[in-house]
């Protein structure tokens, strides 16, 4: 269900570019039903301009014309707006904290559900799967990895990442408390590292848009890192409502290093790890 995030509370600007941004987002919403109106404006503007330049148009009004009349342009723009750049075991200390503080909680359940929201191309999904596998928990966990963009989900499902990044990922893995030889998780095919299917055998990769869709299950862990930084405050409130609804009692919410639970929800969580942004739902 689409729940539009109103921008009407904002003062009406007379700045032509701001008017163009608002009209473009409105056009995208009405034509394609993707709602970017609640996104944080500075990064969004940067991404819109990057697409405008690549489409060789000189204004955002020009981009609007292209987007409205050519679904292929919308597809490319959707990719620009939905890919969140990440890496495997980004912030190794976070994954160490997951092993030390979250894994013991997950162990108390015979079977646990984990939601990686805004999984983009899947680097974090696979990182978490590896950490859970090494803790002997993977066959007791069902992972749901969701993103708004079907194309990036395809990449995530394939578990295929550029070989050139493996040196960096191996370092991250070791600093994250990895206990094995990282290279045993993938096979090399040309310039790609193809990660083992067994890591995501039980995983569900599905389309879900945090800005518009509802809760779809109950989870013991919700991991959503460096996605909400791209959302404005009102949309963040909406997504935090969604997370609270989706968390089991005493379930864990994992955010990015520089993200926090919105103020209106602070009393619903206890802080499990302040530095690594792990929160545990009360009752």
């Amino acid at each position, binding site marked *: 269900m689409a729940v539009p995030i109103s921008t009407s509370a904002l003062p009406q600007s007379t700045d032509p*570019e701001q008017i163009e941004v608002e009209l473009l987002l409105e056009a995208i919403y009405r034509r394609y039903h993707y709602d970017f109106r609640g996104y*944080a*404006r*500075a*990064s969004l*503007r*940067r*991404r819109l301009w990057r697409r405008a330049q690549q489409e060789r148009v000189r204004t955002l009004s020009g981009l609007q014309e292209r987007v409205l009349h050519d679904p292929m342009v919308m597809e490319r723009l959707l990719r620009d707006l939905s890919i*969140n*750049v*990440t890496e495997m075991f*980004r912030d190794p200390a976070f994954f160490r904290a997951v092993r030390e503080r979250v894994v013991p909680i997950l162990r108390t359940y015979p079977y646990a559900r984990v939601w990686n929201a805004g999984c983009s191309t899947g680097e974090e999904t696979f990182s978490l799967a590896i950490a859970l596998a090494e803790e002997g928990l993977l066959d007791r966990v069902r992972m749901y990895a969701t993103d708004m963009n079907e194309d990036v989900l395809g990449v995530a499902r394939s578990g295929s990442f550029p070989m050139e990044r493996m040196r960096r990922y191996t370092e991250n893995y070791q600093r994250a408390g990895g206990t094995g030889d990282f290279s045993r998780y993938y096979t090399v095919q040309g310039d790609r590292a193809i990660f083992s299917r067994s890591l995501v055998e039980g995983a569900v990769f599905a389309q879900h848009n945090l800005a518009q869709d509802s809760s779809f299950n109950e989870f013991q862990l919700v991991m959503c890192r*460096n996605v*909400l*930084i*791209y959302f404005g*405050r009102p949309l963040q409130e909406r997504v935090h409502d969604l997370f609270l609804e989706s968390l089991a009692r005493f379930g864990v919410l994992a955010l*990015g*290093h*520089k*993200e*926090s639970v919105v103020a209106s929800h602070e009393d619903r969580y206890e802080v499990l790890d302040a530095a690594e942004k792990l929160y545990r739902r009360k009752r």
Partner: protein
Amino acid sequence: MSGYDVVVIGASWGGLHALERILGALGDDFPTPIVVAQHRDPDADDELLTGLLNRHTALCVADAEDKSPLEPGNVLIAPPGYHVLLDDGAAELSVDEPVQFARPSIDVLFESAADAYGGRAVGVLLTGANEDGAHGLCVIAERGGYTIVQDPATCVRQEMPKAALAVMEPDAVVRLDDIPAHLGRLCR
């Protein structure tokens, strides 16, 4: 009433020393919020740079968090591995690709300051050994903001200020030790 609403500072190689000198000489009554993009190791300890700077200044220095408000007396630093952009009186973070190998990128910060603040932004480009910030400083100047380049003679590395001076004429080229007083006059 200050003529400017934000001071954005970009620094790279040699930046820690320069930032210590500048922030250390500004009083806690400096009326304009400051946001800094200092190139740093993406794996660095978050607290290291802010801890060092806080020892030298009366201002309150902190890593920018998601939507940190810009407030007088406060200095926000771009965290390792994130771009910082400005909008609507608050900092926005992004993990988009590095720009010219840098994340945080000085250009990203400066361009967004120009977008959000137009003629009410001051851009300061300090010491460094690359070309980040030159384009961003041009954009600040184009939108009517005030631009300062650290006098290369007072830089640990001159490449970054010289790259800016090669493509633009800033409002002022200022020796490191004179930058605080210069900012004080602008933002009084």
